[in-house]
């Protein structure tokens, strides 16, 4: 590549955090008009590298060149001036602001002392038409879909005249349809002369839209290759440093009687709007039932009514034949339901409690952990130590606060606690979110193990791949109901994607 055709060049970038070298002399370059992927395990250092490019972090060593010119990017302001824009892994949008307000924030057009909203809106409309980024300028962020929020994020960068766009895991939160739209938008932008750096864990996406890909492992560049000259398998093995199989290793399921039954359940969401509408569903021993659906179609509410965190308006839930709707979380836990919550830091753990205390978060009051009337911390420690061994939790000791552990190990505490309670029903929500391949493998194995022991497993994940790979049956949710139950062996993602968007209803063999 000739020098003048290079949009971004990072040379020997090193960034150290306490106890870890996040970027270890990383060098790579991206050509103008190229879509370049950054690929790597969790914690490989991708976000760190891009945060450096966007001026959020300062590198300890190394040089950055933009359009061939060596630059110092002290802060996002400089980055923006250099024509760099970043669409963050977690959206950076003010919920209570409108689309336009979010887009202009920081570079507001003025009329006298006040903001010139009509000019701003005009410009936003213009941009959105040009790039096919359909948004509604006057709407509040809190009221629009995730896909549209992402379009707002992209417009923010375009509004500031960005030529180089960084996308940090943009597809993690999107439906298959939205992902396709996004890919089209990216192509469109490249055609308009923009350059894109794309961080993603999904090899399919890289193969579909990217020109080049740089693979990072443990803060080091492993290789930079052209997409035309590689394959998903090759990329995967470069990424983790060993051969990986994507398929989950599991035997045929042996489903037995239904243990958990929902009958015409309705429930409201936090705003008081019906989120579950006459939903019926059965979960059987010895199976993994996957719940698929676009975020916000009642999955969260479904899980919450099952675990006692949300009230049921009507209908009934039976566990072992006994009604449990509107039982308290404790009553439900005591009827042998394990629950791996979606947000481990918010729900699953008291981060300032020790590993040991977290390991008994649901059982501290059992006689096992008491001596006379008082709590016996020694007994808790012994219990925790056993779990640490059995579940391979990497922690300095059982007295370490959970906060100090890495995400994967925090998740393992939860898995250990919930699985060790020997539940009949295990509800797992997004159990592998944000984890790397190794950790994911471990957790998948544990879930299948539970199934094989004759437990019933309910799996909710936004990763369609995960649902497809693990489930024995898949229930697709749309607008608060189950629109169909399918067998993963006889359906494809395309079909499920259509059901998720409400445009096709297919009745499974034993639909309710």
């Amino acid at each position, binding site marked *: 590549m000739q020098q003048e055709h290079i949009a971004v060049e990072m040379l020997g970038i090193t960034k150290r955090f306490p106890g870890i070298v996040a970027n270890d002399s990383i060098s790579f370059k991206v050509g103008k008009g190229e879509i370049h992927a950054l690929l790597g395990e969790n914690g490989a250092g991708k976000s760190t590298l891009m945060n450096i490019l966007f001026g959020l972090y300062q590198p300890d060593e190394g040089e950055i060149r933009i359009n061939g010119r060596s630059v110092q990017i002290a802060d996002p302001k400089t980055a923006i001036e250099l024509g760099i824009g970043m669409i963050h892994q977690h959206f950076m949008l003010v919920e209570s602001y409108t689309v336009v307000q979010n887009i202009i924030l920081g570079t507001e057009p003025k009329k006298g002392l006040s903001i010139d909203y009509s000019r701003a809106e005009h410009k936003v409309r213009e941009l959105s038409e040009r790039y096919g980024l359909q948004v509604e300028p006057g709407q509040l962020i809190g009221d629009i879909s995730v896909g549209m929020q992402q379009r707002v994020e992209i417009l923010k960068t375009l509004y500031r005249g960005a030529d180089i766009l960084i996308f940090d895991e943009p597809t993690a939160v999107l439906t298959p349809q939205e992902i396709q739209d996004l890919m089209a938008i990216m192509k469109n932008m490249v055609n308009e002369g923009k350059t894109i750096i794309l961080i993603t864990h999904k090899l399919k996406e890289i193969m579909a839209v990217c020109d080049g890909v740089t693979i990072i492992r443990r803060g080091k560049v492993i290789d930079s290759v052209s997409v035309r000259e590689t394959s998903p398998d090759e990329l995967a093995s470069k990424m983790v440093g060993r051969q990986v199989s994507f398929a989950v290793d599991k035997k045929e399921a042996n489903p037995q009687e239904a243990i958990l039954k929902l009958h015409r359940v309705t429930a409201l969401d936090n705003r008081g709007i019906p989120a579950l509408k006459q939903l019926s569903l059965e979960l059987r021993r010895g199976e993994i039932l996957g719940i698929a659906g676009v975020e916000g179609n009642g999955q969260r509410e479904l899980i919450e009514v099952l675990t006692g965190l949300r009230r049921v308006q009507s209908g009934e839930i039976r566990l072992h034949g006994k009604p449990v709707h509107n039982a308290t*979380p404790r009553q439900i836990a005591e009827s042998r339901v394990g629950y791996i919550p979606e947000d481990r830091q918010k729900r699953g753990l008291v981060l300032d409690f020790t590993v040991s205390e977290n390991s008994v978060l649901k059982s501290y009051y059992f006689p096992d952990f008491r001596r006379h009337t008082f709590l016996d911390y020694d007994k808790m420690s012994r219990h925790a130590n056993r779990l640490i061994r059995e579940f391979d939790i990497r922690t300095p000791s059982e007295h370490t606060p959970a906060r100090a552990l890495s995400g994967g190990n925090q998740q393992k505490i939860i898995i250990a606690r919930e699985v060790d309670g020997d539940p009949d029903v295990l509800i797992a929500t997004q159990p592998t979110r944000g984890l790397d391949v190794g950790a994911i493998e471990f957790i998948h194995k544990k879930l299948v193990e539970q199934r094989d022991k004759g437990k019933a497993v309910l799996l909710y994940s936004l990763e369609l791949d995960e649902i497809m790979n693990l489930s024995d049956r898949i229930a697709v949710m749309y607008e608060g109901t189950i629109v169909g139950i399918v067998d993963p062996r006889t359906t494809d993602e395309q079909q499920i994607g259509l059901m998720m968007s409400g445009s096709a209803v297919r009745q499974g063999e034993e639909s309710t």
Partner: protein
Amino acid sequence: MSKLIYWLFKESSLVSLIAIGIGLLLGSLIMLAGGYNPLLAYGSLFGKAFGDVYNTGETIRQITPFIFTGLSVAFAFRTGLFNIGAEGQFIMGALAADFVGISLHMPWYIHVPLAVVAGGLLGGLWGSIAGYLKAVRGVHEVITTIMLNWIALYLSNYLIKAWLLEPGQMRSKVVDKSAWLSSAGLSELFGGSRIHYGIVLALALAAVFYVVLWKTKQGFELRAVGLNPDASEYAGIQVNRNVIKAMFISGVFAGVGGVCEVLGVFHYQAVNTAFPGYGLMGIAVALIGRNSPVGAILGAVLIGVLTYGASGMKFGAGVPEELVSIMIALIIFFVAANQIVKQLLKLTAKNKKEVL
């Protein structure tokens, strides 16, 4: 003992110690700026506080309520709540003890415990109003406890005037001797000062604080709710009930503090137009003590000595008593902004390494 030393010198305690040091240091700078002699001032401050048995007794008397309110604030902090209402709970506790002490007549071994329990209960109930409002109605406890302080002040004034007033005075009648927490013997031992058995009660409650929070299942729940209500709810702990419970227990600590002032020091309750200020100081005590029971005791000692010794400083060195409030404020400030202190610590640590 070695545990105590360890506790004193681990980093978080070190921050408190250094903050205290900075407070005293800045205090001396302010004195120098005002043309006073800091050495003389501190000398007369400590001289006043510990100069003789009488003053030592009075210093302990001054420390006692601070321990109670410090425990109260610290306990709430531990459960994720900011109790600015120790002041009001203190007043309500005092009111209940005053009522029991004046209106009931019985042998001391029933009278004293009954008054203490009544005061603790009323203080606790007063605290749990804020807990209830937080748990059920979602009103932030900082606002409600501030409001409840004023309500407690005026309500107790009204009730004293309506039921307990000593004619011709702006205070209640004197409580029966059988309910007194002070004794001639103890007072004699300390040169006739008003030291009373409330100090024993305060130390006992510090132990209760420890046991409840770290040795019981209620304590486990209270701490879990304080640190992460969402996870607690998930784990089947009743969050609302624990918020109310936490405020109740916090209020009990403050309430018993009020009891001891009535039964131990004044033997009556006055009609007040302003707050006695023990509750607000409790915040300082808790912060300096890093919200632990031992810390609260030590924090109370510091604040008690400073406030009691203030008049000695005025007498001996002419320094206005308010300098003590300034120093206390600075100490709280540096404990709160402990990053500043930690930065200082790191700097000195680095220097040390270089020297070695």
